[in-house]
C-alpha cells in the first residue's frame, strides 16, 4: 500500500499564479523520496500541502489509505523540518526538541531523555540549555532536525534540511538521515538543491519545474533515461552537453533532434583518433579531484568533458573528442521529450567498433 498518494493536485495561492499543475505521485510506505527542482518551482508548496499547512483547490491527498484533504496538520502524524527552521525562540534547545513529545503527553523524564539522546546524535549536547538566538545557523538547522527526529512519526517532510551545514557535517548528517530512515522505516520526503544529496539519498527522485512534475523515478532511471531535455539538463554535474544532431560527426541516430552527451561519456584525445571525432581546443581545465573537467571550444560548439587526470599530457594543443553512441541521449527538438535511440549496444563494443571504423 502506498503511504501517500497525490492525485492531480492543483494549487493556486490567492491572487497569485498557479503554483502546482496536476501533480500526481504515489509514494510507498518507507520510501525515501527526494524532490528536486529550480528555486520557486513549488517544492515547498508541495510539502506544505502534504503537511496540511496549505490546502489545494483541486486533487486529492490520500495518507495511509484515507482522504486527508480536510485533515488538520496535527492529525496527520507527520513531522516536518522547515526551510527556515521555525524554532521556538523562547525555548531552550532541549525544550524545542521535546515540545512535540510534551504535547503528546510523554512523561517528563522520558521526554528529556529522548531529547538529550537526539541532541547527542546531532552533536548538540553542549547547547541543550541555549536558546536558538544564541546558536549558529548550522546549529539551528540541527535543532530543527532534532525536533522532527525526536518524534517517531511515520512520515518526515524535510525542506532542505542540510543546506546550511559545512561539507563535513553535511556528509555526516546525510548518513544520519539515512540511518534514521533505515531504523525507523519511515517515509521521508526530502527537498534539496544538491544533486549529490538527491542521487545518494533517494529511492526515487521527483523532478519538478514550474509546478509540473516532470519525472518521478529511481536515480538511475532519471540520470540514464531522463524523460525530457529539461530533466537531463537539471541533473548531472558538470551538466550535460546539448547540441543539434547535425553538428555531431558520425551521428547515426534520428536526425533533427537534440543530442545530449553526459561529460563523462565523452573521451578526449590528444591526437586525431580513427573515425569521426570533434576537433577543438581546451579553454579551461578544472581540477576537481580525481576528475578533470575540460571546457572545450569545438566545431560543434562548447563541450564539457569529464576525463581522468591522465587523459591529456600537460600543455596539449588541439584535442579531439569522441562520444559513445550507446550513451548518447536524444531529445525531440520541439517538445524536448526523449526519443528512444535505436543504438543501444553495450558501451565497450561500440567504443571498439568506433576505433576500428
Amino acid at each position, binding site marked *: 500500500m502506498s503511504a501517500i498518494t497525490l492525485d492531480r493536485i492543483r494549487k493556486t495561492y490567492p491572487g497569485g499564479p498557479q503554483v502546482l499543475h496536476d501533480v500526481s505521485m504515489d509514494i510507498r510506505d518507507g520510501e525515501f523520496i527526494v524532490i528536486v527542482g529550480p528555486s520557486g518551482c513549488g517544492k515547498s508548496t508541495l510539502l506544505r500541502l502534504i503537511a496540511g499547512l496549505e490546502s489545494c483547490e483541486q486533487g486529492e491527498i490520500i495518507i495511509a489509505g484515507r482522504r486527508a484533504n480536510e485533515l*488538520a496538520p496535527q492529525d496527520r502524524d507527520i513531522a516536518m523540518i522547515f526551510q527556515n527552521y521555525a524554532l521556538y525562540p523562547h525555548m531552550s534547545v532541549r525544550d524545542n526538541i521535546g515540545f512535540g513529545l510534551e504535547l503528546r503527553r510523554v512523561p517528563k523524564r522520558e521526554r528529556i531523555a529522548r531529547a538529550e539522546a537526539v541532541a547527542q546524535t546531532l552533536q548538540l549536547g553542549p547547547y541543550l540549555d541555549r536558546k536558538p538566538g544564541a546558536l549558529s545557523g548550522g546549529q539551528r538547522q540541527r535543532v530543527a532536525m532534532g525536533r522532527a527526529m525526536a518524534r517517531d512519526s511515520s512520515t518526515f517532510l524535510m525542506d532542505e534540511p542540510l543546506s546550511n551545514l559545512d561539507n563535513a557535517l553535511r556528509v555526516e548528517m546525510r548518513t544520519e538521515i539515512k540511518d534514521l530512515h533505515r531504523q525507523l522505516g519511515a517515509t521521508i520526503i526530502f527537498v534539496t538543491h544538491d544533486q549529490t544529496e538527491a542521487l545518494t539519498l533517494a529511492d526515487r527522485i521527483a523532478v519538478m519545474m514550474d509546478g509540473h512534475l516532470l519525472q518521478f523515478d529511481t536515480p538511475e532511471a532519471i540520470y540514464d533515461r531522463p524523460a525530457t531535455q529539461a530533466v537531463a539538463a537539471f541533473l548531472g554535474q558538470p551538466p550535460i552537453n546539448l547540441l543539434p544532431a547535425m553538428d555531431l560527426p558520425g551521428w547515426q541516430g534520428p536526425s533533427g533532434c537534440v543530442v545530449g552527451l553526459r561529460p563523462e561519456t565523452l573521451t578526449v584525445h590528444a591526437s586525431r583518433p580513427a573515425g569521426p571525432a570533434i576537433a577543438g581546443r581546451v579553454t579551461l581545465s578544472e581540477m576537481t579531484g580525481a576528475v578533470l573537467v575540460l571546457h572545450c571550444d569545438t566545431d560543434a560548439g562548447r563541450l564539457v568533458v569529464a576525463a581522468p587526470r591522465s587523459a591529456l599530457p600537460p600543455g596539449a594543443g588541439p584535442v579531439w573528442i569522441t562520444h559513445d553512441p550507446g550513451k548518447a541521449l536524444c531529445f525531440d527538438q520541439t517538445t524536448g521529450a526523449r526519443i528512444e535511440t535505436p543504438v543501444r549496444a553495450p558501451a565497450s563494443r561500440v567504443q571498439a567498433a568506433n576505433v576500428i571504423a
Partner: protein
Amino acid sequence: MARENRWLAALALLGGLLFLSPALYSIAVSFQTAQSYYQGGFDPTLDNFIRAIGQYDFARYLLNSVIVSGLVTLIGLSLATMAAYAFARFDFPGGNLMFAATVATLMIPSHITLIPNYLSLARVGLLDSYAGLVLPAISNGFAAFFLRQYIKGIPRALDEAAYMDGARPIQVLWRVIVPIARPAILSMGLFIFIGEWNNYIWPLVAVGREDLYTLQIGLARLYKLNPGEGAVDWPLVMAASTITILPVLAGFLLIERHLVRGITMGALK
C-alpha cells in the same frame, strides 16, 4: 561622545526629577504633622497614615482598588489576547468587520458610553457591586488592536511548527504566541491596570456604597470632608495619596525588566 552622554544623562535626570517632584513632595508632606506643615519645623510621623486607614477606611478602598483593577486587567487582558490572536491568525466569517468595529471603538470617548452603561447596569441590577465596576471596563478595543499588531509580527512559521508538533490552536496561543508576545502583553497589562486604578468617573457614577469605594473616590471624599477650620488637612490627604500611588509604583518596578526586549531572535534563518 562620552562627554555628550554625560550631559544627556544629566538632562534626563533633571527631567525625571521635575516629573517626580509633585509625587516626592506629596510623599514628604504625608509624613509631617499638620502643625509642622503649617507652621514650619520638622516632626516626622506616621499619624496621617494611621488616621487614613483607621479613621477613613483607606485599607478597604485599597483592597477595592486592587480587586477592581486586578480583575479588569486580568479579564480584559485575557479577552484582548484571545481576540488579538483570532484577528491576527484566522480568517473567519465577519472577522474583518469585527476587527473594524474593534478599531472603531477607539474613536468613541468614554463619556459618551457613561450614561448608557449606567442605565444598562441599573436595569440588570449590577450598580453598587464589584461586577458593576468591572464589567464595563473589560472589553478593551485598544488592547485587542495593539496586541493583534504585535502578534502579526510573529512569524507564522512558528505556529505551523507547533501544529506539526501536534499543538491545537489554543496550545499554540498559550505555549508559543503568549510567551513570545510577553513584553507586549505585560506592557498592555500595566497600561490597563494604571488606567483602571486612576479611573474616577465610572466608580463615582456606579457606586454609592462606601464599602465599595475605590481609592480615587475615597481620596476625593477625604478632600471634601476635611476642610478643617477652613483649611484642608493636607498631610492627611497626602498620606492617602501616597497609599494610592505606592502600589502602582511597586508593581511597575516589579515587572519593568520584563517590558523591554522582544524575543523572536533566532526563530528563523
